[in-house]
């Protein structure tokens, strides 16, 4: 059994069995990360370049740790101190790096579809670490892993994705994954931040009332307001957004049940989520970060396992 794909470009391209294989492999890597020695020699003959054309803290560190725990050789590239600033094209940059014998590319780019474009032109396996407003597959996988770990299943769960849906690659990857795994999905937030075509295109529910969404769900995955991607005012002020859509202790206390609170980070405390909620026992935000390393180790292992089939 192996993945049906050579690259990890998006959850859209994965089969349900691929997702299950990644999640079950991640369980074994999570155990590895509890050992006194957290490093395995699995990818000692593999070189990976982390190509980050866009800022990142968690994802870049998480990938780098995953690669190092697997004993891969790691090269980091950030656009701010590279020749891309001198006008080199993406394909030229990558081909130059690959000519130095690199086996895998982990890539983040502000342009949607950038890793898909690259996949058409190079042989190395590519992992999408976030492309524009399209997909962020490893985030959706670690979210699913964390839900499954806490609640024992994904199928049948009611998951509300709340906030800036329009500019969120996390939302899209999560929707693809949750639908493939048999969960029910609702998106919630201000009408200006939710594309209405999602309802039909993805077969999900849209709820503009945040309290109703919270009352419906088992899991609330709360997203950051991505001001850097908004080139026009889509809501009046951050304060008002917090009043109308922010996750507050007050809102959670009104529910007569416990729900799981997730957030892919970075959190804008006091905007989409209040500090006391992020720090509360409902929140599994730091579990998500911890699980991210194990899930990314699983993706790297399963993808590199195919690079030179016998």
């Amino acid at each position: 059994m192996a993945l049906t794909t050579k690259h990890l470009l998006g959850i859209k391209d994965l089969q349900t069995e691929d997702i299950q294989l990644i999640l079950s492999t991640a369980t074994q890597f999570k155990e590895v990360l509890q050992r006194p020695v957290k490093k395995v020699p699995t990818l000692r003959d593999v070189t990976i370049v982390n190509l980050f054309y866009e800022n990142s803290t968690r994802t870049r560190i998480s990938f780098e740790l995953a690669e190092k725990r697997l004993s891969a050789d790691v090269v980091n590239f950030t656009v701010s101190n590279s020749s891309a600033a001198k006008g080199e094209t993406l394909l030229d940059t990558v081909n130059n790096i690959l000519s130095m014998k690199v086996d895998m590319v982990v890539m983040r780019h502000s342009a949607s579809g950038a890793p898909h474009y690259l996949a058409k032109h190079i042989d190395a396996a590519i992992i999408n670490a976030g492309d524009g407003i399209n997909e962020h597959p490893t985030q959706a996988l670690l979210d699913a892993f964390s839900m499954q770990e806490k609640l024992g299943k994904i199928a049948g769960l009611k998951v509300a994705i709340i906030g800036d849906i329009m500019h969120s690659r996390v939302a899209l990857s999560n929707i693809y994954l949750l639908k493939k795994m048999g969960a029910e999905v609702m998106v919630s937030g201000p009408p200006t931040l939710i594309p209405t075509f999602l309802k039909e295109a993805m077969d999900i529910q849209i709820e503009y009332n945040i309290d109703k969404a919270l009352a419906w769900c088992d899991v609330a995955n709360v997203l950051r307001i991505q001001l850097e991607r908004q080139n026009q005012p889509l809501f009046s002020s951050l304060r008002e957004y917090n009043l109308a859509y922010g996750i507050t202790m007050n809102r959670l206390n009104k529910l007569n049940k416990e729900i799981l609170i997730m957030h892919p980070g970075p959190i804008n405390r006091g905007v989409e989520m209040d500090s006391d909620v992020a720090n509360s026992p409902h929140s599994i935000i730091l579990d998500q970060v911890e699980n991210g390393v194990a899930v990314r180790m699983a993706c790297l292992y399963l993808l590199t396992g195919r690079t030179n089939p016998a």
Partner: protein
Amino acid sequence: MTLISEQQLPSIVKRLAHQILETYPGLTNAVIIGLQPRGVYLSDRIVAALHNELPADQVQYGKLDITFYRDDVRRDLHLAKATDLPFSIEGKTVILIDDVLFTGRTIRAALDALLSFGRPSKVSLCVLVDRKPSRELPIQPDFTGKEMLDLTPYKVKVRWKENDGVDDVILLVD
């Protein structure tokens, strides 16, 4: 062709358990670790036999998966099973259990994996079938169910009731 029959297998398991106890009386400072996936069937049986001789709390038993330590990761994708070592192996005698000792590469990987958990004072090896002439590394068992002559190019298959519906060891012709 049958190498070990359903009648012979329980006697061999019992003998291996007794030999382990003879060498490590009371399993003092010793732990049993079965190798995933197929060594665990044998270690389950041996541990059951040890429970007949010792109080349950004297038998420390864990399972180890060596997938991430293999030397052929790039040739073939292997899927990992659970590792469960609910005790420290630091300074202990570790008795590794696997079903068939063939090239020795699995045991090499297992020794590597063990070191991620601590520094055992001694590692010893117990196998059901020893295919000695096929060894590719300098690794020998301490407790052997049955030693075999050169069986190349055939495959030795150990079958267990839990998984294969029958307890025996057969020779498979590809």
